[in-house]
């Protein structure tokens, strides 16, 4: 069967149009705008690297960058390890395991806004958690009104939401762990812990690197959790603002500084690209060993 030379392009066309219109063009536009003083209502003037100089001198940028980095560093280890442990429990075929798996996966499909509201009610100064703490004779804990605790609370929500998603990835990877290796280790007298560290973990290493990369990128780009828990304010004095929150705050509305927000977005993109390249390099090195 023969086809015209342009036939494959016809199949590609819908995807290409969407990518060009909604990904490539906005991305290139963002790069151009980052060198201007554009506002929401005007194209602005070319300002060279002024936006980047301003960024280097902007304390809000450094607070946001520090918070995003801290966020990533704190959420990645639990998001790599905890879903693996849950997946190992969830892969057992025991009565009621379906309910267990569903319970862990529910936060993934729940709306971020609903999740944020529920956690806000739980952690509010008069919320459920503080009511229990007070009933037990303790003092109220300022989960949402102390900038550090707000970040920690938000990280807990991120980890809680991510558990189910990464658990599913681990479940599929666990199915590919060679059974003969596990059996051989058992015959050689290896206990469950030894089998886990010497057989399961090495077999899952590529998956773990993938999950580390995904959770690092998501952690660095965190927005909805911190936005909802702080009521959109970024915490008292904006001290819990993250980079994406800062971009939203600077660029939103008719009075938004689109040029500066684009410059912030470009820096965020470069940081994330760097993170992914490091992960890729680590993965390759692991493969070569």
């Amino acid at each position: 069967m023969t086809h015209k030379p342009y036939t494959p392009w016809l199949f590609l066309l819908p995807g290409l149009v969407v990518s060009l219109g909604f990904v490539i063009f906005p991305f290139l536009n963002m790069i151009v705008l980052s060198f201007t003083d554009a506002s929401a209502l005007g194209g602005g003037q070319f300002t060279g690297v002024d936006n980047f100089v301003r960024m280097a001198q902007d304390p809000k940028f450094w607070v946001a960058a520090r918070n995003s980095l801290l966020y990533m560093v704190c959420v990645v280890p639990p998001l790599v390890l905890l879903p693996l442990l849950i997946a190992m429990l969830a892969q057992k075929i025991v009565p009621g395991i379906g309910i267990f798996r569903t319970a862990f996966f529910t936060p993934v499909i729940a709306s971020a806004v609903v999740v944020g509201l529920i956690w806000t009610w739980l952690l509010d100064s008069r919320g459920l958690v503080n009511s229990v703490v007070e009933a037990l004779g303790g003092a109220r804990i300022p989960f949402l009104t102390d900038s550090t605790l707000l970040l920690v609370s938000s990280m807990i929500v991120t980890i809680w939401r991510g558990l189910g998603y990464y658990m599913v990835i681990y479940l599929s990877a666990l199915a590919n762990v060679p059974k003969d290796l596990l059996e051989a280790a058992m015959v050689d007298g290896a206990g469950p812990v030894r089998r886990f560290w010497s057989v399961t973990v090495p077999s899952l290493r590529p998956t773990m690197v993938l999950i580390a990369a995904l959770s690092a990128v998501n952690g660095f780009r965190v927005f909805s959790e911190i936005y909802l828990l702080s009521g959109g304010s970024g915490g008292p004095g904006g001290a819990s603002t993250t980079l994406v929150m800062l971009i939203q705050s600077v660029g939103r509305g008719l009075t938004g500084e689109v040029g500066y927000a684009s410059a912030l977005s470009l820096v965020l993109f470069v940081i994330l690209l760097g993170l992914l390249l490091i992960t890729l390099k680590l993965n390759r090195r692991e493969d070569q060993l």
Partner: protein
Amino acid sequence: MKRRTFLAGLAAVPFAGTLASCGLSGNTASNSSAGGQVTGEITFQTWSLKPKYTDYVNGVIDAFQKQHQGTTVKWVDQPADGYLAKVMADASAGSLPDVINVPPDLSFPLAKAGQLVDLDQALEEAKPEYLENAWQAFEIPGKGGCYGFPWYLNTGPVFYNKALFRDAGLDPEKPPTTFKELEEQALKLAQSKKIAMLGQTPTIADFGLYGVKVFENDKFTFNEPEGVEFVESYKRMYDAGALIPEALTQNYTGSGTKFMAQQTALSPGSAYDLGKFKTDAPSLYANIGITKPITNTGSANMFLHGVSVPKSSKNQATALAFGRFVTNAENQVKFAKLASIFPSTSKGGDDPYFTTEDGSDEARVRVAAAKQLKTAVNYTPVQFSDQMREALLQQLADAMLGKKSAKQALDDAVNECNRLLK
């Protein structure tokens, strides 16, 4: 964002009132607005008025089309969520609808970018039909020009929780009327019963109510000594526990929710809130106290919405005629009777509905608010953007936490607001 939700809340008020005939006649049957023929099709965009006010808006459109044969008005209602994004996208593309519902702070950036028709030039004769303070709200201070027909207004009383006042040994019949009394009573409430009086740090409008010159000579000036004194008063209240911890991050909506949950004892509000208390917080409603707004200037705060006509409209004459028609006294009074809002026309407030009490709380609030509106001021400068509101909130939080002095926090907030003005 939240402030917009509040404004949209006014627009989406469920109200059990009946539509009564008002006896006022609109005076807007101009066939040659802005020097063109009133004919052809226009698009009218409103802010979250469907489905509550569908019949009302359709009625206004029908009446206009009847009065001006050959015109067609296409009504588009946008939900509150995403309204700003829609206006922004349309404005960037130069395709704003012919008549658009905007509050002054949204009309300002559009007018500044030269996108709106100046009514002082296009329809100067319309000016006397509206309250002076409402017309001024759509002017660019220092530069003249008016960029929107004032539409509905709101102002409100201060609500307080009589039961909490009583528990703390305060006289529930003597709520604070000045900021000095507010601090005294808030400290007593916090010290005796560990109850917070307030749910949020001061907004820019509160500075105005305190008597601070917020904006002068094209610059923000709320860091003047009176402003510092005002923030220091709040700092004393915060330290004593008279503000809930969430006050540092909260806006009007969040603060109102805390008042409904009886976690704070006092909250500014509007006639719309009273209905909400009745249905959503009956135990609060049973103890609700209603008093005049706390102000050092003698004038209450006013919120308003308007309709503007973009310069990009291909049918400006019809758009201007329709904008004036929607906001004429007759149509505004009808609308105000459906929702808990007030007309911005010079004649609208004379309707008996706004001057006569029938013994109910709703009527008491309505009559008091209508009286208040005659001298009310929109204390929020039109230049005050979302970014500026956030800067003020953050600096006040630092002042409350003692990270900065009140003076330093206000200086920083003013510097940031003035930088954003450029």
